[in-house]
């Protein structure tokens, strides 16, 4: 982005200096995580003999995609300097709304899917609106939303369905076509590639394009880096933040529909705790907790690391009691590696 085509004169603005391709690569936020991903892959390829099977890689990719779909917009939000702790339960809410609306109204399933999109975007707008109006930290705002949604999920489902899971909508009109869109899979040989992998790739591509090629992307970096300075130079801080929360809500809707159409019944108590996994994936991928730095591709690499670890431990036949310990250790290692790579990159500038 800095290449201007002119040879750098000794007294030009330093921002217009040409950088060598290698140095550009070293400066990428996701470099550390890519190194980490390769290391994790090699590690499990050695210790778990069934890890390298084609069908296993399909399973790993699927696990990564369910996290990655959410991690991409969460990464953008974190670059914008904010948190969303309600992202995990919002996925469940979205699935519940879709399913219950279709069932209770005896409507075509697509109607429920569409209503769910509107309501879920409403949750995102609520997060963004509360944040910009109250000036409270997003950690507190979304913690409140998280608890409220958890209660709503359970309370509403019980009120409407009489139990804690929704009624089946598998025999309703539009279900099959919706399943094709949100939860189908493609079998090549003995590899099963789920459609979520496509959704994930698309979302990461869009997020990357927004960050690198659009004005909105610059605003995200500016707002996350220094909100007051950004406001002073005319960046619409409020609109940017609300937009970021809408992005997370949209991804939550996609994940929620996938959940619903995979199993056609939704358990209302699920999704709690997943929001942290999305944040972890973004952080492993090079996003700074403090905002202003990171990338969408990094979040995808983070999700792949997470998927490889969570399934690799099972393929390696380790005792699952230790799973969380390894996950925590990996998170620390990956983040340390990131910090180290970034320091090196900045030192060579």
């Amino acid at each position: 982005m800095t290449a201007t085509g002119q040879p750098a004169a000794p007294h030009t603005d330093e921002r217009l200096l040409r950088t060598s391709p290698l140095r550009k690569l070293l400066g990428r936020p996701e470099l550390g995580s890519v190194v980490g991903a390769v290391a994790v892959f090699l590690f499990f390829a050695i210790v778990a003999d069934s890890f390298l099977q084609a069908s296993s890689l399909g399973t790993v990719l699927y696990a990564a995609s369910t996290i990655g779909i959410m991690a991409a917009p969460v990464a953008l939000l974190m670059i914008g300097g904010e948190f969303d702790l309600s992202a995990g339960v919002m996925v469940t809410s979205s699935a519940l709304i879709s399913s219950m609306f279709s069932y209770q109204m005896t409507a075509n399933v697509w109607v429920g899917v569409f209503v769910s999109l509107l309501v879920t975007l409403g949750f995102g707008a609520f997060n963004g609106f509360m944040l910009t109006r109250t000036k409270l930290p997003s950690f507190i705002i979304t913690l409140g939303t998280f608890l409220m949604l958890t209660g709503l999920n359970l309370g509403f489902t019980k009120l409407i369905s009489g139990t804690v899971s929704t009624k089946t909508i598998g025999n309703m009109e539009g279900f099959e076509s919706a399943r094709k869109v949100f939860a189908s899979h493609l079998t090549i040989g003995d590899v099963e590639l789920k459609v979520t992998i496509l959704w994930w790739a698309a979302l990461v591509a869009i997020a990357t394009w927004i960050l690198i090629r659009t004005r909105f992307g610059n605003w995200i970096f500016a707002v996350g880096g220094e909100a007051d300075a950004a406001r002073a130079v005319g960046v619409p801080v409020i609109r940017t933040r609300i937009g970021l929360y809408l992005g997370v809500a949209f991804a939550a809707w996609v994940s929620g529909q996938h959940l619903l159409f995979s199993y056609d019944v939704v358990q209302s108590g699920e999704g709690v705790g997943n929001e942290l996994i999305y944040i972890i994936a973004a952080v492993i991928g090079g996003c700074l907790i403090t905002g202003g730095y990171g990338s969408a591709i990094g979040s995808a690499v983070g999700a792949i690391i997470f998927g490889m670890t969570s399934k690799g431990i099972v393929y390696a036949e380790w005792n699952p009691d230790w799973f969380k310990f390894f996950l925590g250790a990996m998170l620390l290692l990956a983040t340390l590696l990131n910090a180290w790579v970034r320091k090196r990159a900045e030192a060579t500038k």
Partner: protein
Amino acid sequence: MGAVLAAVLAASLAGCSSTGGKRAEERAAQQAAEGRSAVNTPRWTFAMVTHSGDGDTFWDIVQKGAKQAARKDNINFLYSHNDEGQQQAELVQTAIDKKVDGLIVSLAKPDSMKTVVAKAVKAGIPVITVNSGSAESKAFGALTHIGQDESIAGEAVGDELNTRKREKVLCVLHEQGNVGHEQRCAGAKKTFDGTMQNLYVDGTNMPDVQASIEAKLDSDKSIDAVVTLGAPFAAAAVKAKKTAGSKAEIDTFDLNASVATGLQDKTLGFAVDQQPYLQGYEAVDLLWLYRYNRNVLGGGLPVLTGPQVITRDDADALAEYTDRGTR
């Protein structure tokens, strides 16, 4: 760091207990027979995937039973668990990827497990369901189901309460929306001649469980029995009874060491056990029988491991095993 370590070592050497503790456990383990396989069949791999959360006592006992059978039957036994339906389904998928020789699953969330269990059956892996899912087991293509029929277990509780001449009973449900729990209380209501009320509490928060039961016992002095649906909650109910100054008898589903002692010292009336050890043990053993001899147990009906009503008379004999963590 070194100083701390030295202090800890010194302290632990200074005061030795001559009873109980780790050393007694080690001695008992030494006395127990060496686990060697008793068969000459090839080393098959069986995977067990359950809906248990992290660090669940009940499932720990199921695992112990399964591992014991695996030792005897020369089985490489793999265990994994997750309390989210989608994650549990993914774990079953990893077992299919590994091409295991047998699969044991619990169907607490049957809808999430439907597709992936069908996939395992299609791949030619024999499947046995345990603990929950007796209604779905057959339809999903499993060989058999091993567990307790919750309604029957509840009915046994109702009968036992009748023999104990109870009039007004409280049924404490600690997991909102757990269908099996609802069935237990409904079964008890069916056979019980007195009146029975349900009380919903938040099982993840013990102080809250105690406070809720306490409030209920305070407000209604005529309650003369409380039935909890899990061993840890019996202890909370006993505390609640003390503070509320109630005369109610505390009874519970499931068993653990403190329930066994509670039965012995009469703080608890009776317990209904579904023998988790047996669920794990039989699941592995029946898979082995199927692989070795195409035997299937149960004749198309679930194999029941409970209910077994345990009173003070049985508790003495069981204490040894609850301490060991296998009952």
